């Protein structure tokens, strides 16, 4: 494979890592709110967060296009103030991956946080600890398996994102063409060698990731 042929793999990893970091940071906050706080409209918030699991990826992509295009208020504000262009750039692919992977991260993490007995957190608070210390020394150590599982799910989902990415970031070889899109392209173009190589690499990588996680989390608390 030539240097250009490797580009989709490198781009996909870069997108998946960036998207996973954003999903973990955002998702931990949301999952904690959902697990520990009662507020009005909680069910509606949950329904919206979980949308990407059920809505067609193309529809999701269309929404993102409408919201973040240069013609929209948000899109033009991001571009004017931060010089951030999302549509038809690799950052758009990150956005698509975050939206697609966030619910997959939140679900197990919320369950993991809910499984931590609130008595333990209250015990820590009464022993003089701040909310951050309680999270760092009690909640996180007891919920980290779920958080790692959620992170891996988010990463895997980001790696395989196709429909939404195609809508938001397009299919620009050397710029926004990810592995899934490159495989689709290669198959359409009848380039079986390229398709087979990419498929093999993705398959081996996916298995390695899951194997690593199951080894990493086995036999601890």
């Amino acid at each position, binding site marked *: 494979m030539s240097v250009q042929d490797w580009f989709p793999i490198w781009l996909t990893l870069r997108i998946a890592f960036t998207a996973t970091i954003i999903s973990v940071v955002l998702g931990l906050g949301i999952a904690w709110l959902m697990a520990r706080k009662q507020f009005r409209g909680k069910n509606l918030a949950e329904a919206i967060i979980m949308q990407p699991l059920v809505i067609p990826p193309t529809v999701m992509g269309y929404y993102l296009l409408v919201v973040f295009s240069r013609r929209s208020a948000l899109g033009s504000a991001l571009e004017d103030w931060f010089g951030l262009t999302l549509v038809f750039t690799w950052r758009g692919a990150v956005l698509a991956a975050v939206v697609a992977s966030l619910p997959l991260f939140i679900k197990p993490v919320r369950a993991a946080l809910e499984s931590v007995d609130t*008595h333990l957190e*209250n015990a*820590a608070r*009464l*022993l*003089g*600890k701040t909310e951050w210390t309680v999270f760092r*020394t*009690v909640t996180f*150590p007891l919920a980290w398996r779920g958080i790692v599982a959620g992170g891996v799910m988010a990463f895997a989902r980001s790696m395989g994102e196709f429909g939404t990415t195609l809508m938001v970031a397009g299919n620009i070889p050397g710029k926004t063409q990810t592995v899934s899109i490159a495989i689709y392209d290669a198959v359409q173009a009848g380039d079986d060698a390229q398709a087979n190589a990419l498929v093999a690499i993705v398959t081996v990588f996916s298995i390695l990731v899951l194997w690593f996680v199951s080894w990493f989390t086995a036999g601890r608390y």
Partner: protein
Amino acid sequence: MLEFDLSKTYGAFTLNLAATVGNEWLVLLAPSGAGKSLTLNLIAGMTKPDAGYVRLNGRTISDTAQGVTVPMRHRRIGYVFQDYALFPHMTTARNIAYGLPKGSDRSAVVERWCRFFHLSGKEEFYPRELSGGQRQRVALARALANEPDLMLLDEPLSALDRRIRASLQRDLADLKNDLSLPVILVTHDFSEAQMLGDRVAVLEGGQLLEMGEKRHIFAHPRRHETARFLGVENVIPARVEGRDGDGEVTVAMGEWKVTVPSDPHFMPGDAVYFCIRAADVRLKVDERERPNPFSAHVARIIPEGGTNRVELNHVTEGGPGLILLMDDYVIGRYGMNPGSPITVWLPSEKAFLCV
């Protein structure tokens, strides 16, 4: 010193409780669902009260009128949870030292409390490797190591089996001697209140029935609900008939008239409850004159391991029957069976009246 006056409503349930607790053990005694644990949660700050205040050593830690809510971490309250709430990913030593401020001599504190609670040698054990009684001791040590201004104990013995309870009760009794703090202990078991309380507050349905020195409450509860809850088997509706010169009070239950010691609270005509423990009801076996005799029939005999709970047929038409205890030997000796005629008598000084 702890002072509080709190109320909280959940649907049809309302908790109202006020008390002042010095360096003593106050036992909140109540059946489940009466608001015992809720009271502790409100004082500790896990649940927000609807109205009221909590002051600890003169410091207001919660006051709805002033809008004061001190965060839990600044309340200096030691809390022992019913389920222990030990950190499962930490050893005994790390659990005990968890709340210690930076710079304190952690190993000295851990050693001291492990010695007190017979946990020496268990410092590196995880909670899952400890017995129920040891876990409860770690939970106590963890709360005490932080040198709290107040200790709250939520049913500290209820999850333990009988043998472990006894040894933990001894530890708690030792602790009671050493500790000079306000302590509130919550339980549904009157024997725990009897062993550990200085004062006892009896709750029902979120309301205080009565509160007072332990020996007063146990010897002579004022309310019939308290008497029932403290295990007095015979609580029978009655009417005050009269008082004689010595101050003895005569009460009537239907045809049966009984004298009880002087009680200035009651006047002739008052509706009262006549109370006596089953263990104080005597079997009349000869012709000697006895106070307060009563003849009836045995309704049922319930064996309770060597002794038997004997229920007589009703005292008044449709009312409850008198209950007494009889050893197996006595049952056999006098051929007691359901339906047998029986005469009992009541020592006046053992009986008392409740509203």
